[in-house]
Each structure stands twice: as C-alpha cells, then as structure tokens.
C-alpha cells in the first residue's frame, strides 16, 4: 500500500467521525472514540506494510512528500509516534469525559447530554493526519501547511472547556503566541526562499552549501525559523507559554501537546537544521545557536520545575526540560563518516532524538493517564492531591512511580537510555563542556522534582475527605499496563525502539 494512503485513511476517518456524530443517533458518544481507536490501530499496523515508490521522478507529489531512502524509516517512525499518541489520547479523552462535559455540555437546554464530546474525539484525529504528513514534509510549503493543520486544531482543543476560565485563558494565550510564532515562521521561510530560490529542502541544502550563498541573509532566515520552531518545541527563551497553556488545557490535550506536538516540532527542526548543517560555514554558527538554546532550556526547564506545587505545571516544566535534552542531541554536531558509510544510528542526532521521543512518549502518556484518572475524583491537579495515592490506589501509584522514575532517568527504564544516548552523543562528538555540565545539572535537578511526586504519593497520608479509592476504566488500565511493560522492556532492550527505525 502506498505510504500516503495512511494520511488519507486518517483524514477520511475524521470525516466519518464528524458525519457519524451529525447523522447517527448515539446514546454513548464514546463509541465514536472506540471506533477511531480501532481504525487508528489498524493504521498503526499498516505502518509496517507500506510500499514506497520506485522513483520519485515525474510526479510532482513527491516534491511535497519525502520518499528519500535515508529518511523513510524516520518518517514512518514519527508517523507511528503520532498515531500511537492519538490512540492513547482518545482513550484518555474517553476517561476524561466527566470533567470535560461539566464545562461544555448544557443538558438543561435540551441538548444531548454528551454534546461536544465527539468533536473532542474528532479533532485529535485531524491533528494526527497533520502530524503524519509533517513527518514526511520535505518542502517549505508542505511543512507550513501540515504544521498549521496541527496548530489550528490545537487552538480549538486547548480552549475546549469553554466554561472554564483556565482553559479559555490557555486558549487565548496559545492562539496569540502561536499566531506570532507562525508569523516568524513564514517570514523565515520567505527569507530562506529568497536566499536559495527554492522551496524544496534538498534544493535549499544544495544552495546553502554553495560558496556564493549570502551567509548573513541565510542566518537571518535561520534565526526567524528558530524562533518559531523554538516556540513549538518549547525551547527557552521561547517557552513562556508552556506552563500556562499546559495547565489550562484539558488533560488529554496537554498530553497530546507535550508528546505529539513536540515530536512534530523536532522533525521539522531536524529537517530544516539539516539544510544548514550541510555547509561548513553555516553549520558552525547554527551549531552554536543550538548549544546556547540547549543550555538555556536545560537550566530553565529543570530549575524552574523545582518549586512547582501543581502536578500538571510540573509536567509542563518537565516537558521543557526534556526539550533541553533533545536540543542537546541536536546541538552535538553530526559526525561525518569518512568513507561514505552510513554512521551507526546512535551516532546521529536524528537517531538519538527519535529514540528519546519514543521513550518520552511512553513515560509522559503514562503520567497523563494517571493524572486523568485522579482528576476525575478531585477538582485540581495540585501535588497535595496526590498525597497518599499509594493507599488510595496502589495500581495508579505504581504506574506513576514507574513514569516518574523513567522521566527522571533511573536506569533500567526507557528514560535512562534516552538520556544515556544523549550524553554519549554529546561527549563523543566533543560538545562543549558547559553543555554537558548543564545536562548533568538538569538531570540532577530532575531527581528532585520527579521524586517529589513519588514522595507525595508514598510518604504522606491522604487528605481528609479525599481518601476514597479511584476507579479506572478498563481500556485505560490496559493501556497503562502496556505502557509500564514497554518502559521496562525498552529500558533493558533498547532495540525494541531502535529496531523500529529502519
């Protein structure tokens, strides 16, 4: 099956869901979500069955959709991340419906008691299609369109709980800053086009490597693009929106933002920075920018997370911190292999970043699943609410323990391999000492704030009147168990993820 059918299937799925909501009378709208989960699971399996075109010559389509031999594996891997995240987010959304409907549906007006729920399931599917395309976008135009398809969907989703002030505030902030960053992106793209005369990434790379290239203008284009993409991935100093938006958005959407949106940002960042790393003169300066960004992000994300008392906000800072580690991998200049051989996967930035994102997906989604379940029982996401979770629900406490351990980078979990590979790449490629020191400081700070959650769950007794057991629905439970197993399995056998990138 041709690879682009996957995106088509996902878009059609979204349309079918819309129509189903409009025309089919459903008692329980969660059925729409289950249907989507089923189809997306099939799509996920189809990822292993795709076929690629013999030649990309002739059809203009392949100018917008990457089919290079070298990057096929990565495209599929990132598509897989998008699909998997969407599946889990849908299950999480079904779990979250109680909270959501409180702020959306108005049954007293005679509307369906679950009105507004099905769109909450449908929009992530459309975003998923955008993310999948983004994984293969190899042209400034297609990068922009796919990126906007995702971002605009997120504008709606973040502000979805329209009777909740926090959600609205988050929506407005995200909209305004997102639009600003889009402006930077487009401006950067136009400059890049002006410098190179082409929209095609391969062509841009070729042009930038020429001696005649206008270095100042190219760097200006890069600066504009890095502002926009830095915003998308949450790199300091463009990270300001993250804590507020993450805290205000509905929890499943926060999960979606922090995993899929970040992954997508990094693919684009990798692709575009790859063009600049092709030329010696530019690559040095671009590399220096990444080093500075990585140091700032590592220090800010990790240190600002220390005093947080709200769990959701803590995870927001943690997502900044992880962006820092990912940037650290990106900042380590790519090793050039002399005899033209492919370097080993783990000696390349893209290989390490892909692995890290895969591991990050597992542990972050697990944390958000637990948060969704707990949020059903209590009003807020403060850390105090997690006191005594070990007594209220040993299963949830254990899940969160695993997730936090992995996020902190305790060995034998997936998160440790992620950090390990990043550090290995940085030291191996002779990254500057400050960057490594910032990484060590960041990882050490991580021990504190992730363990704070563990301490709260296990050491403290539950608060008065908030000590009942916490029910978890069956699908969520199954997903959590699978994620826990995956975290440990990947923590011992990293090939489980690396093998997927082929």
């Amino acid at each position, binding site marked *: 099956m041709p690879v682009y059918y996957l995106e088509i299937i996902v878009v059609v799925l979204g349309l079918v869901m819309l129509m189903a909501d409009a025309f089919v009378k459903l008692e329980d709208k969660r059925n729409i979500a289950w249907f989507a989960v089923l189809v997306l699971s099939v799509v996920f399996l189809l990822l292993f069955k795709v076929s690629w075109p013999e030649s990309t010559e002739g059809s203009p389509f392949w100018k917008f959709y990457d089919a290079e031999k070298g990057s096929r594996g990565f495209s599929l891997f990132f598509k897989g991340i998008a699909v998997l995240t969407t599946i889990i987010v849908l299950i999480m959304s079904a779990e979250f419906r109680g909270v959501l409907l409180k702020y959306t549906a108005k049954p007293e007006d005679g509307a369906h008691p679950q009105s507004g729920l099905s769109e909450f399931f449908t929009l992530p599917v459309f975003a998923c299609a955008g993310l999948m395309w983004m994984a293969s976008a190899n042209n400034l135009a297609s990068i922009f369109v796919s990126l906007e398809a995702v971002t605009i969907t997120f504008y709606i989703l973040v502000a979805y709980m329209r009777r909740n002030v926090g959600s609205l505030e988050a929506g407005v902030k995200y909209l305004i800053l997102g639009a600003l960053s889009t402006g930077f992106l487009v401006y950067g793209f136009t400059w890049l086009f002006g410098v190179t005369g082409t929209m095609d990434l391969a062509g841009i790379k070729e042009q930038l490597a020429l001696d005649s290239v206008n270095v100042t203008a190219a760097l200006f284009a890069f600066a504009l693009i890095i502002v926009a993409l830095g915003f998308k991935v949450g790199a300091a100093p463009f990270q300001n929106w993250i804590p507020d938006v993450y805290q205000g958005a509905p929890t499943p959407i926060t999960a979606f933002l922090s995993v899929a949106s970040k992954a997508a940002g990094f693919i684009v960042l990798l692709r575009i920075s790859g063009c600049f790393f092709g030329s010696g003169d530019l690559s040095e300066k671009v590399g220096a920018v990444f080093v500075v960004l990585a140091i700032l992000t590592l220090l800010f994300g990790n240190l600002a997370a220390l005093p947080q008392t709200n769990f959701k906000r803590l995870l927001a800072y943690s997502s900044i911190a992880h962006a820092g580690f990912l940037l650290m991998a990106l900042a380590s200049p790519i090793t050039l292999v002399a005899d033209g051989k492919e370097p080993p996967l783990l000696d390349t930035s893209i290989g390490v970043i892909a692995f890290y994102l895969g591991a990050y997906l597992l542990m972050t989604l697990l944390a958000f699943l637990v948060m969704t379940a707990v949020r059903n029982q209590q009003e807020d996401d403060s850390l105090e609410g997690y006191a005594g979770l070990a007594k209220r629900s040993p299963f949830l406490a254990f899940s969160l323990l695993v997730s936090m351990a992995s996020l902190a980078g305790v060995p*034998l979990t997936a998160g440790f391999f992620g950090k390990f590979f990043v550090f290995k790449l940085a030291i191996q490629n002779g990254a500057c000492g400050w960057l*490594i020191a910032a990484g060590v400081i960041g990882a050490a700070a991580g021990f504190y704030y992730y363990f704070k959650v563990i*301490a709260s769950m296990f050491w403290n007794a539950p608060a008065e009147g908030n000590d009942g057991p916490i029910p978890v629905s069956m699908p969520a439970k199954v997903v959590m168990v699978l994620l826990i197993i995956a975290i440990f399995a990947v923590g011992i056998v990293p090939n489980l993820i690396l093998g997927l990138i082929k």
Partner: protein
Amino acid sequence: MPSSLEILVFLPILAALAIGFGAPARFTAIGAAIINLGIGLVAAKSYNVNIEGGAVFQLESSRVLLESPKLALAFGVDGMSLILMLLTVIVTLAAVWASPAESKIKGSPKLYYISSLLIAAGALGAFLSTDLFFLYAFHELALIPTFLMIGMYGHGKNRKRTAWTITIYLGVGSLILLAGLIALFVNIGQNDTFSIAEMIVRAQDSETMIPEATQSWIYLLLLVGFGVLVSLFPFHSWAPDAYADAPTPISMLHAGVLKKFGLYGLIRIAGPMLPAGAEKWMNLVLVLLLGNIIILGLVTIAQKRLDRMIGMSSVMHMGYVFLGVVAGGTIGISGAVLLMFAHGVSIALLFALAGSLRERFGSLEFDKLGGGLGKLVPKLGLLFGFAAFASIGLPGFANFAAEVMIFFGAFQPMEANAPLSFLQWAAIISLWGVVISAVYMLRAFRKIFKGPLTTTETPKDMSWNERVPALLLIVSLMLVGFYPEILLKYLRPALESLTLIGS
C-alpha cells in the same frame, strides 16, 4: 535457558514481583534469599580456581541487546566479583530474615520486602555484570527503594530530610560517575563496545590506550563518582544519617553490600583502564583516605547515638579499603577485597543487633539506653561483643586477616634502606585508626552492656528470628577469619589475569 548467574540476579526481582501480586511477603522473600544463597554457593563451588591466565570471567552468559555499540546483558564472575556475590547473598538472607514480621510493619509489608529484594538484585547485578552499562544500571536499581523505605519506615523525625539527602547526593554522584564512564567508553578504541573485558584489553594495548592527560581527568570524574557512592572523605556526609535513620534491613544492605560498589568499580574499571590516571591522583586519594580514617575516626568517637556511631564507623573503615587499593599488588588488592567482604558482613551484623536493641528499648542514644543491659539481654550482649571485636579487627575474625594484608601490601613495594614513601607514611598513620576504632567500639559496648542497670524495662532476649541472621553472619566472619584461604583462593587467579590489575 538462563544461566545460574542470570537466575541469581533475576530471582529477587521475580520474588519482588510475586510479592507485588499477592504472594506472602516474608515467606517469599526469605525463600528467594535462601535459594539465592544456595545458587551462590554452587556457583562458587563450580568456579575453577586453577585456571591459568587467559580466560577472565567464568560462568559467562551473554545476551546481545544492541549491535552498535555492542551492548549485552552479560554476566560472569572472576575472583573478586565472586567474593562480593557471596557477600551479597549472605547479607541479603540476613537482612530479609532480620526484617520485622509482617504484622509489626506499619503500612504495607509488601513494599518493605520488595525494597530489600530489589536492592539485593541491584547489588548482585552490578557485581556480576561484565558489561559496563549494566554494571552502572543495576546499581541504580536501589535508588528508589532506598528513597521510599527511609521516607516511609525510617526512624526519627528527620527521616524525610535524610531520604532526600541520600537520594540527591547519590543521584548527583551517579551522574558524575555516568559522565566519567561515558567519557571512558568514548575514549577507548572505537567506542563500539561496553564489554568490560574487551575495554580492559584495549586500555592496556599501547596502541589503543588512552592518552595520559585524558586519563587524568576521566579518573578524577570516576574517583568523585565512585567516591560519593562509597562515602570517601569529604563526600561522606550522606552516609551516617542515612544508615542511622533507615530501617534495619536497608542499613544492612546499603552499608554492607551496596556501598562496596564504589570500591568494586575503582578496582575493576578505573584501576586497569586508567593506570596513568590512578598513579597521578594517588597522593590525593591517600590524603582523602587519611581523612576517612583519622578525622572521621575521631568524629565517630564523639557520637552520642549507637546507630550513628556504627554508620560513621562504616564510613571510616572504607579508608582501609582505599589504602589496599592504592597499595595495589597482589597482597594489597587481596586485602582490600577481603576487607570489603569482612566489613560488609560485620557492619550488617552491627546494624542488625542495633535494630534489635532499638526494638527493645525504643532509642539508641547512649544516655537513654543507660547501662548494664548485658544482664537483661545476655545473648544480645554476647553477639554484640563478637560484632564489636570483629569490627575492630581482632584476630580470628575476617577483618583482622584483611587489615593485616592491607598493611603488608602497603609496605611490600619498599626497598631495603629506602626512605618511607608517602604510601607507607599513610599506612603508618592509618594504623592509629585501629586504636581509634577500639576506643569507640569498646566504649560503646561497655556503656551499653556493662555497669549498673538503669532501665526498668524487662524485654525478652533475642528470638530465633533475630538469632539466625546474626549467627549466619558471625559464622561467615569467623570461617573466613580462621581460614582466609577459603576466599583468597578465588582471588589468586583473578589477580594474575588482567581483570584486576594493570600490567
């Protein structure tokens, strides 16, 4: 089919899982520890001591997880890891057995036993791994159980602070260590293998060995990293509080077994792979170890609580092991490894007995305990006397044999009529440490067990659940003390091969 060493490492983990799913906690944990002791003894029995050079690790098993760089879940033993493995299985059994009965644990007894088992598994994995990555990774398995146990079941008001201190301190230490290990890995050869044996071969090949300047800073990173884990002066401040506040089995496992990982790493990794670095920083290590022995020895004397005193003494004794490591040579290293075993067993014994005391009298402050308890609990007093003598290093206990070897080792490279080197001066100063430990140990023993009785409580003497682990530990100590060859024979072939000592 898993190899015997794989079973050894994963059995405690499986037992912990079984407990998590509802198996009876104490029964399962003790069962797993006994089986592990059996496997450990069988493995020791099947270890070929007459091997001539060449083959390094025995009973090897390897499962390749990653091709490039080569990463394998690989286990194997040589003489040193065999001895530490035996130490681990012995102390684990004692620690699990000495844990309070399920009904006496406030909170979840499951978690209590699971934590002990996980720490044991981590220590076994670290000592038996022949792959640099897993050597590091397994050690960290203890991080979360320790954190949870001290915070949940620890003693004293400060237990939460203590839990944070040990976690952050060890976390930072391991990160520095990780940076050092990665630097080591990157600089050796083509950075394509984590196999320790291969790395040592490359590090000692004059073509692929690391340049001296690089060795120097990597060694410093490793020294700080391992030094934190093993509470080398001045990175020791986490240890006494942690041991004093932790629940008894955790103190036993941590002070007895897990702490030895830092020394093990220095002997196994840093020594053979960075010989020039080791030489360069030798004097620094000597100064620091004197800090351990003399300064911390004096601090130990000033302690007012038994558990803190034992914790400090365990930190202090690490100085001798370092002395053996620095002295090098067959005798020095043998003495160091032997002392690691002896100290591990004796400190576990002391913590177990201190735990018994605390359970009976509620406090371990010398003033509150009063004196004359020997009349109330004679068996406890007798065993404590044995433990104190062992810890001081009286003949007949393993500690004595080990310390003698270390001091001999320090003087061995000396030539006739040559002036004393810094190493030998350090050894002479360290000898005073023996006096210091005699002072605090005997004083503690006299204060608690001799003299007029002041307390009005009438507790029972030791139950069998307390006696069995204590006897197990004492018997191992005396066995090795009277007949050190029982362990030394394993060390000899290993010392001759290149896993332990550079060229």
